[in-house]
């Protein structure tokens, strides 16, 4: 991440760009919800926008776009367990439905 004051000054412009983009995406999310899409489509749209917003916060505000390898390693491991955590209960539910 940046530690040089001149570099930080440059990053400030990126923070402001992300701020405006996040605001626009928030408006888009709310506007999209007014269209009454079918539930699966609505969920997909909302989660895609949320993922885009989340990646901007993580990448720019949390400086994940240029971090040390140790942090990436820890987060990769977390991501794997997070995915397992999200899907195991659903698989369990589908199993119960089937039998």
């Amino acid at each position, binding site marked *: 991440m940046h530690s040089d*004051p001149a570099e930080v000054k440059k990053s400030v412009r990126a923070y402001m760009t992300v*701020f405006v983009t996040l605001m626009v995406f928030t408006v888009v999310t709310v506007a999209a919800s007014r269209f009454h899409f079918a539930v699966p489509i609505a969920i997909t749209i909302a989660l895609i926008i949320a993922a885009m917003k*989340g990646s901007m*916060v993580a990448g720019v505000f*949390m400086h994940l776009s240029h971090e040390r390898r140790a942090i990436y390693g*820890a*987060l990769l491991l*977390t991501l794997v367990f997070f995915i397992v955590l999200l899907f195991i209960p*659903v698989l369990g*539910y589908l199993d119960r439905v089937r039998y």
Partner: protein
Amino acid sequence: MNIPYTVEERPDTGLTNGKFGIWLFLASEVMLFGALFSTYILLRVGAEEWPHAELSVLLGTINTIILISSSVTMVMAWASLKMNNWGRHHLYLALTFLLALVFLVNKYFEYSEHFAKGEGPWHNTFFAIYFTLTGLHGLHILGGMVVMAYLLGPGAGLWKRNPEQFTNRIEATGLYWHFVDLVWIFLFPVLYLL
């Protein structure tokens, strides 16, 4: 005895202990909220009907705007320190604290309205998971405010004694705060819009 690697980076990780520590803490937080999101999916997939339009989209949107703004003021508080501007840092951190307070006040009004209508966590499955998720998130906001209050008040003296360590503390607080914002970015559509 001094805590090692608070300012200089550890040779093996290339990070200060505080920074690596906060990231590991955030990893555990991902699992905590992940378990609750997983519960939400399970409850929703298993429900025959799922309530819609139970929450005020306007209040949720306002709170989203507040939290996003607070993330910007937080990162600016850190950037101001890096640019050696203490006054601006103090202003941005105080603004972040204030925005967090406004978020909680909004949440208080939102909760009060639901309780007045008898829509507590016992009302139905939706409100049970809504209060669990937003309550836990609210506690995180409160935790962040306690840390910010410390850094605005008694903890601010460290800037004079060890400016680099103080900047690192602000960075760690910022990482936590952005994570709290990130969780809300997912909570808002999931609970208010879908």
